[in-house]
């Protein structure tokens, strides 16, 4: 359908434009705003692939939570001086080589096209539900098959809370 293609291009432009601006802007606030644009583009692409739940999580958790935290920290630290300094690393030749290597590797697969990706056999349509990103179905899987990762993710969050407190509290 044409509309899908148009939407894809639109969101892809947001993702890439935001991404490029994120890594090139001098001002950290501008970078963070560009990153938000990029993240919203990614959220749009989720929606395009029937991942409604993750679309919501992306906006609530990523944009609303993580990025606000970033902006908060950027406001806390004074980066006026940093914006006037040289922005890019000295070893840019080494870095360029590394990026080129990664890009070439991935470029090869783009060149090979769809065959190179060789997607595993999809589940039969009879098993596949009409709406893949259905929150109810996600919950079913999460609390049965993926119960263990869900539980240990809570340990992870506990570690993060304790860690942030240790780094931030007045005296050890």
């Amino acid at each position, binding site marked *: *359908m044409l509309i*899908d*293609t148009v939407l*894809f291009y639109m969101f892809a432009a947001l*993702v*890439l434009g935001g*991404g490029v601006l*994120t*890594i090139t*802007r001098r001002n*950290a606030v501008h970078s*963070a705003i560009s*990153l938000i644009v*990029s993240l919203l583009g*990614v959220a749009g*692409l989720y929606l395009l*692939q029937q*991942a409604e739940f*993750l679309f919501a*999580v*992306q906006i609530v*958790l*990523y944009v609303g939570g*993580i990025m606000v*935290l*970033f902006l908060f*920290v950027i406001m*806390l*630290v004074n*980066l006026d*001086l940093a914006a006037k300094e040289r*922005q890019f690393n*000295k070893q*840019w030749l080494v*870095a360029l080589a590394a*990026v080129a290597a*990664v*890009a070439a590797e*991935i470029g090869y*697969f*783009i060149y090979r096209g769809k065959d190179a990706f060789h*997607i595993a056999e*999809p*589940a039969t*349509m009879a*098993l*596949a539900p009409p709406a*893949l*990103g259905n929150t109810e*179905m*996600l919950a079913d899987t999460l609390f049965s098959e993926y119960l263990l990762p869900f539980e240990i993710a809570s340990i*992870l*969050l506990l*570690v*993060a*809370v304790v*860690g*942030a407190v240790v*780094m*931030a509290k007045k005296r050890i």
Partner: protein
Amino acid sequence: MTEVPISWFLTLSAVLFVLGVAGFLFRRNIITVFMSIELMLNAVNLTFITFSYQLKRVNGHLFAFFVMVVAAAEAAVGLAIILTIFKNRGTLNIDDVDSMKN
């Protein structure tokens, strides 16, 4: 069912990943470096969702969900570390935070 071929999505996420790697390697501001990592994680998530859609399986969504949880945890701790650095040194330039050499 979208008609956009899967390889477009995968290519897009690969490019996004490379952008993140480039930002990580090139930039000198620690916060921007950290934001580059977020770009890379988003590229990964997009890959997961794309494959999940293609495979008609829901578990890819859950992987992306766990990646987001981890990203949130990383952000909390990472930003706390960045704040301590700023408090002790007054700079967030990665080249200035390099005092240990022989």
